[in-house]
């Protein structure tokens, strides 16, 4: 309804399809941004998101790193939140009846070892999440992600399999941009049973120093880089993953994430190979409204470039 009102070209179809999950537009709330409560998710739905990802949860409650945990600099954002979350059980309560939200919602879980991933997944998937995402790629939490070697092809395959074993819903593996051959990691994830790939998590890590305090600004010292600074690298990662998976005969969808803040960014990401686009840091730049804005801008672009179905543009640059 709302969607239709904004429309300039009612015939443009912005619909996306992620392993059979239908999205009315390709924007997906990225994990870790806003996704800590059902009420906040509802607000992101209202703002026009096509799908949502909750903030990653672990088996037990975590307070995360001390502040500052999130800092915006001239070219992007640095964060070292450190996976603060109330634990999978409390999260499952928070997100009970999540299916009542009008768009598909994806869970996100992390652990230190495959068993922890599986345990957290089992808890959280008691809620009717439509899919589950596993980030193997956090650059700033000891014991997790790239700091725990989760970004190797072997670990990727092993962890993916452990999660796939405990759920019948699609598993998306979220990869780090800080790897020499991201295509191989994507293949390892698919090998482990993943249905799709989310690319990418934050980059680096990076550091910022306060020259008066002579200390790093982030309490943890360094953090993942997101936003505009990440966009070109994320785009290339999605390009590489699309190519590697298609060359290997796979059709797994990619949620292209990293620095997307407007319709033009989203379209570039889709042409590189994404079926949907994750949006995180842009919430800072343009407010929660960014989801509706990106859809509107995508519609204008489709109109201008005479594109009837946005879906047809996935991977267009590989043609």
């Amino acid at each position, binding site marked *: 309804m709302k969607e239709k009102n904004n429309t300039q070209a009612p015939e443009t179809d912005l619909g996306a399809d992620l392993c059979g999950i239908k999205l009315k537009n390709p924007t997906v709330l990225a994990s870790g941004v806003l*996704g800590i409560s059902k009420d906040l998710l509802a607000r992101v739905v209202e703002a026009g998101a096509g799908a949502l990802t909750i903030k990653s949860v672990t088996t037990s409650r975590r307070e995360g790193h001390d*502040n500052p945990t999130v800092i915006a600099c001239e070219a992007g954002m640095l964060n070292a939140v450190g996976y603060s979350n109330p634990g999978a059980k409390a999260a499952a309560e928070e997100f009970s009846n999540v299916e009542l939200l009008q768009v598909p919602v994806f869970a996100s879980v992390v652990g230190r070892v495959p068993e922890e991933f599986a345990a957290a997944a089992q808890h959280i998937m008691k809620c009717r999440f439509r899919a589950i995402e596993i980030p193997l790629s956090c650059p700033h939490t000891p014991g997790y992600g790239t700091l725990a070697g989760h970004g190797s092809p072997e670990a990727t395959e092993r962890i993916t399999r452990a999660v796939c074993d405990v759920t019948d819903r699609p598993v998306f593996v979220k990869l780090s941009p800080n790897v020499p051959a991201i295509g191989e990691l994507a293949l390892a994830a698919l090998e482990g049973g993943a249905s799709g790939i989310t690319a990418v998590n934050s980059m680096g890590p990076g550091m910022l120093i306060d020259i008066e305090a002579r200390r790093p600004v982030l309490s943890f010292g360094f953090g993942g880089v997101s936003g505009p600074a990440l966009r070109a690298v994320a785009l290339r990662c999605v390009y590489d993953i699309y190519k590697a998976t298609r060359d290997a005969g796979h059709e797994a969808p990619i949620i292209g994430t990293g620095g997307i803040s407007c319709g033009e960014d989203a379209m570039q990401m889709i042409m590189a190979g994404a079926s949907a686009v994750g949006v995180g840091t842009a919430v800072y730049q343009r407010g929660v409204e960014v989801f509706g804005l990106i859809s509107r801008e995508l519609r204008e672009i489709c109109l201008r470039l005479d594109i009837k179905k946005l879906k047809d543009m996935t991977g267009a640059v590989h043609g």
Partner: protein
Amino acid sequence: MDESIQNPGACAAPAGKLNFQPSLPVMVKLAEKRCETQNTVSLLFEHPSEDKASFRPLQNAPGQFVMVWLPELNEKPFVISYISDTGFGITVTVRGNFSRRLSELQIGQKVGFRGPFGRGFSGMEDYAPEKIAILGGGCGMASLALLAQKIPEANIIQGAPSSSELLYAERFPRQIIFTEDGSFGFSGRPTQWLEGKLSGGVEMLYTCGPEIMMKKVVSLCNANGIRCQAALERYMKCGIGVCGQCECDGRLVCRDGPVFSDSELQQMPSFGNTRRNAAGQRIKL
């Protein structure tokens, strides 16, 4: 009225690229310490020597907040409670480790600030000063101080357990004061001001203080046809509307608030009931 509340967060975004607004702390030297009560001290700073976009104290509107950084320790939200052409200040009540370390700072030591953030109090231009009430409880007075400074003719009401815990008693001499132990001013709680006939004629009320108190104030206002706005406190991490930590019924206290209007508060069942801790867990107030 809801529409009249300015939300600096919900930026009208032009198509295409936005500049990326940095939010890095700016270090400022402690110039003066002022004891307010036994466990509350005000820290006064000179304005930053360089103008940096990420900290502009002079742009602060009453009710907004800043993030205060002690390197190697933590960063937490505080309101600006003093402002002048030459400097600004915050008022710190010792509650735990961070506020204690902050209160123990020595003159000349540096503290990092970024902000102001969020949405402050609004709509005061629409009312005659004497139709406005500013009602604070305890440390909540800090959040109201710049508003009281701006509208000295307003009805300023403060409540505290006892006279020794009163804030800014001399700063705002026209204050109506309630102490629970009767050691100063009226005996009782500031809500009595609303319950009694004292508030006659007031049309707009701004409040900050313990949430249980604010809950009561807001419902009394609603019952008496007084419009009102309350400043909330929630656990904050980013302060810039990204992490979701400060969530309260789908609203971000750091960006949509900390000030909310009566009609918004009516849609916020958590108001006066629950908050979230550092892990994001919902707990009873």
